[in-house]
């Protein structure tokens, strides 16, 4: 079957790959944002030691290749700690943490941006630090953050393609399989590329809509 032509079944394969990509992207985004929120809390409350650890880890994640992070988790962790690691778990863990590192920075600068102008005023009225965060900072920081966050997620969607290298059967891996079987690289990679492109555009437009809505609500609250 080396020079095999395309078959209708290939569409099923592509759909499966697409499903894995979207699924893993969704999962890692949710987990990543959650971790980032925790990181942000630790940073906001200036928890000693933990805060330094978080900053160091997120700097390391932001400043090294995702591929290397994947190798470290998938090949390194099992060898060193003698644990089992499936490609999917390694991929989920790595991409989640990677997303968290970047989202953490976005959240933090969102809060910094609002805090500088507003907290001084809010403190006068005797609000607690939590109340300030919940009612003053978060709503506006969300509006500040959503634009960069959408940009980040569009980028992270591309990054998920690297999990194919450690053997997850995502869209890119399916591309690899079809490429080797049909020897039609232009067709295969164009189709795969277009699918990623469509996903990215979809994500960006959803993000733009949310951003619009959030910004409107902030304006309303300001009155």
């Amino acid at each position: 079957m080396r020079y095999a032509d395309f078959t209708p079944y290939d569409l099923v394969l592509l759909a499966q790959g697409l499903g894995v990509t979207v699924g893993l992207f969704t999962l890692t985004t949710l987990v990543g944002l959650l971790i980032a929120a925790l990181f942000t809390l630790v940073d906001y409350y200036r928890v000693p030691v933990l805060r330094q650890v978080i900053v160091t880890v997120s700097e390391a994640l932001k400043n090294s290749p995702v591929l290397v992070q994947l190798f470290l988790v998938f090949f390194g962790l099992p060898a060193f700690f003698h644990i089992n690691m499936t490609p999917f778990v390694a991929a989920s863990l790595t991409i989640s943490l990677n997303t968290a590192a970047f989202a953490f920075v976005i959240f933090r600068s969102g809060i910094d941006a609002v805090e500088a102008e507003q907290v001084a005023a809010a403190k006068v009225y005797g609000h607690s630090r939590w109340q300030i965060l919940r009612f003053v900072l978060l709503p506006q920081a969300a509006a500040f953050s959503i634009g960069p966050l959408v940009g980040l997620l569009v980028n992270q969607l591309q990054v998920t393609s690297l999990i194919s290298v450690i053997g997850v059967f995502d869209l890119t891996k399916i591309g690899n399989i079809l490429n080797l079987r049909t020897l039609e690289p232009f067709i295969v990679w164009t189709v795969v590329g277009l699918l990623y492109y469509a996903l990215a555009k979809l994500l960006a437009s959803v993000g733009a809509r949310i951003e619009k809505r959030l910004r409107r609500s902030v304006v309303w609250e300001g009155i």
Partner: protein
Amino acid sequence: MNQLWVTLRPHLPFMLDGFLLTVFACTLAIIGAVLIGALMASLRTSGNRIVRGVAFAYSDVFRNTPFIVQLFFFFYGLPEIGIYIGAFETGVIALSIIGGAFVSDVIRSGILAVDQGVIEAAKVSGLSRWTIFTKIVLPIALRTSVRPMGSVLINMVLTSSILSTITINELTGTAKIVASTTFKPFEVYLVLLVLYASLTYALSLLINTVHRRLNRAMDTGGAA
């Protein structure tokens, strides 16, 4: 620790080769990306709608698809149409192309951010369009673009690790081999991660220096 050193030491010259290849590939690709980016940014100001559209599509497509897909497209595709260049050349070209897409956006927004009033002041003193562009707009845009340009370049260095997937033994490629021959993947990849982080840190120091040098004259709003 000592044990680790004993294990890794024989492989260091090999990894140094990989490191140098990474530096070489990134240097070439950055030069390529800046040239392509400058060209595309200027095409996007063209009067011709089609030219503008093509330049926009270029940056749109390459920014919104994964680099590894682009890399495979060229690596497996080029021989199909009778272009036989080595893996290294293919990798450098692909890296230049995606870098160019990002660079063109940086240059473009740098140019658009130049104060219209300053351009008008240049116009009313009779300076020609060309002089205004080369002596006023470009230098100002260059100064405000150092940081965004810097993060594009750092990203290119990180992205270059993906070249290892098409058999190029750059830094990540050599580390992969060392990890499997020493059976110490955790240690090797951790060292690798630190190496990349140091490389990008050094690059960011350089970028900060350039930024400060160029912007001594200008108030850029107190960015840290």
